């Protein structure tokens, strides 16, 4: 006799008012493969947990974003925001598809150079650029986005030593009606700081002002904030034209478009709550087009979009370690991945799917990571089919900020695999070992013998 598939027996109280859970039809179907490669096979080959990136999705996202903007505005250039995910394979996929680079630190800058991005196509942002960093950027003719007056003065001094004018933009912050206002970076529009900096640059004449930059925030749920921001940026650009006859090459609107992740506490699922790429494009393009630029002086629109281009191209595959019953009766499931590699679980309710067939019955539980730390909660409340030790899951929308912000706390960082557009997986970062972890450590000689 053929035995039947087993599932844990589960009983749970039906919450009055949440009638949709009666009979517990489970909407989240199993995800058994990523771009045609079975989850089982990926875990067998690269270990568990493992990050998997879909290059196909990355390219589709960039293509769709380009289409949304280029059908509305004639001069558009994306620059890949390195800190979102700076694995070289990822950066190169973006560059190959036409993206420039946007960096915020020296090592990111060097990475972009090593990835083959020509200096003029590396936008250098951030409040912490040393004189050495600035000299390197000037040598490669990269646009330097000035963050504060000290940086401006230092650039003036460095400009005296070098043989060609540094090419610069200033970062602007402004009120777009969205709270919190990101006013710690750059020069403020409303209180005149921005004009003050622009006047200094124009009067001194030591720097070549080529653009204006802003980044109004991240995961911005309002497209109209971008309309306001683009209007203010255009106002500054037109003011430069009037006052100094200066035509800037570009307006850089930064990043910040929301991905389809669901913010904690949000009633609506991410995809239903956030503006589409078309909404953002319409808001920005309409502001720039109606600002009053001469047709032949229309600035380029630069975009430093990060999370919206890669979040949904990233998956974390993991395995159930054990199930537990908490003292208050709640079910808890312990996974082999924790918040040390899933930093974004602090503000997102990540979508999680089982990776094998399961019944349509769903159970409420808490998902914990494997760390010996109370903060290691991947989902405070999730509804999944009964999972058994050894079962596998897929965590969705993890492509942005997790790999770059992960740490080897208690557990080592996992391998990262990218599946190319033909469906072939490539290892793009090895799993860490004790050796990688201890690289750079130096133990003083007198501690060689511990004598226990």
């Amino acid at each position: 006799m053929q035995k039947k598939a087993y599932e844990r027996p589960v009983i749970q109280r039906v919450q009055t008012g949440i009638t949709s859970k009666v009979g517990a039809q489970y909407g989240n179907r199993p995800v058994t493969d990523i771009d045609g490669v079975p989850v089982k096979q990926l875990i067998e080959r690269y270990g568990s947990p493992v990050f998997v990136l879909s290059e196909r999705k990355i390219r589709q996202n960039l293509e769709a974003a380009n289409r949304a903007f280029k059908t509305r505005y004639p001069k558009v250039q994306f620059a890949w925001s390195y800190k979102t995910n700076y694995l070289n394979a990822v950066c190169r996929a973006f560059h190959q598809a036409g993206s420039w680079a946007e960096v915020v630190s020296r090592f990111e800058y060097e990475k972009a150079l090593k990835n083959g991005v020509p200096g003029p196509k590396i936008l250098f942002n951030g409040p912490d650029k040393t004189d050495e960093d600035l000299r390197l950027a000037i040598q490669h003719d990269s646009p330097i986005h000035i963050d504060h007056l000290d940086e401006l003065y230092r650039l003036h001094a460095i400009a005296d030593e070098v043989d060609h004018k540094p090419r610069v933009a200033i970062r602007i912050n402004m009120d777009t009606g969205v709270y919190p206002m990101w006013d710690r970076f750059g020069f403020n529009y409303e209180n005149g700081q921005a004009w003050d900096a622009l006047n200094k640059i124009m009067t001194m004449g030591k720097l070549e002002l080529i653009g204006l930059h802003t980044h109004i925030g991240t995961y911005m749920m309002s497209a109209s904030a971008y309309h306001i921001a683009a209007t203010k940026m255009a106002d500054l650009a037109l003011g430069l034209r009037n006052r100094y006859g200066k035509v800037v090459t570009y307006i850089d609107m930064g990043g910040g478009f929301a991905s389809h992740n669901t913010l904690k506490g949000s009633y609506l699922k991410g995809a239903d709550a956030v503006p589409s790429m078309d909404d953002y494009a319409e808001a920005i393009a309409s502001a720039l087009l109606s600002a009053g630029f001469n047709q032949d002086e229309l600035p380029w629109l630069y975009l430093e979009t990060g999370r919206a281009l890669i979040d949904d191209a990233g998956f974390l595959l993991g395995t159930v370690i054990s199930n537990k019953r908490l003292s208050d009766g709640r079910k808890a499931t312990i996974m082999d991945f924790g918040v040390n590699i899933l930093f974004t679980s602090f503000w997102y309710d990540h979508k999680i799917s089982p990776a094998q067939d399961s019944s349509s019955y769903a159970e409420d539980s808490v998902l914990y990571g494997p760390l010996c730390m109370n903060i290691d909660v991947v989902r405070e409340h999730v509804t999944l089919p009964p999972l058994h030790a050894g079962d596998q899951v897929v965590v969705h929308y993890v492509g942005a900020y997790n790999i770059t912000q992960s740490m080897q706390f208690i557990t080592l960082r996992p391998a990262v695999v990218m599946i190319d557009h033909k469906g072939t997986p490539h290892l793009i970062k090895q799993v860490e070992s004790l050796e990688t972890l201890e690289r750079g450590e130096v133990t003083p000689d007198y501690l060689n013998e511990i004598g226990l």
Partner: protein
Amino acid sequence: MAMRIKKNIALSESGFIFHPSTGDSYSVNPIGLEILNLMKAGQSSEEIKAHMLEHYRVDGDSFEKDFYDFQVMLRTYKLVEDHE
């Protein structure tokens, strides 16, 4: 020893359970329902375990662990007789 489901508990075929004295409702998955029905029919824990091992792809230890947890929940929800 048999753990007994309270007599007044109603079990529906679809895995819906109603506790008339508290008004609470519960849902069980198909395997949970099968176990509850065996319990209602007066089978002992050992008999239930033997039945499950015969019909499902599961080993004894795994089932025992899950069954134990299930029984804890039945007790928590006060669906079984206090005296066994």
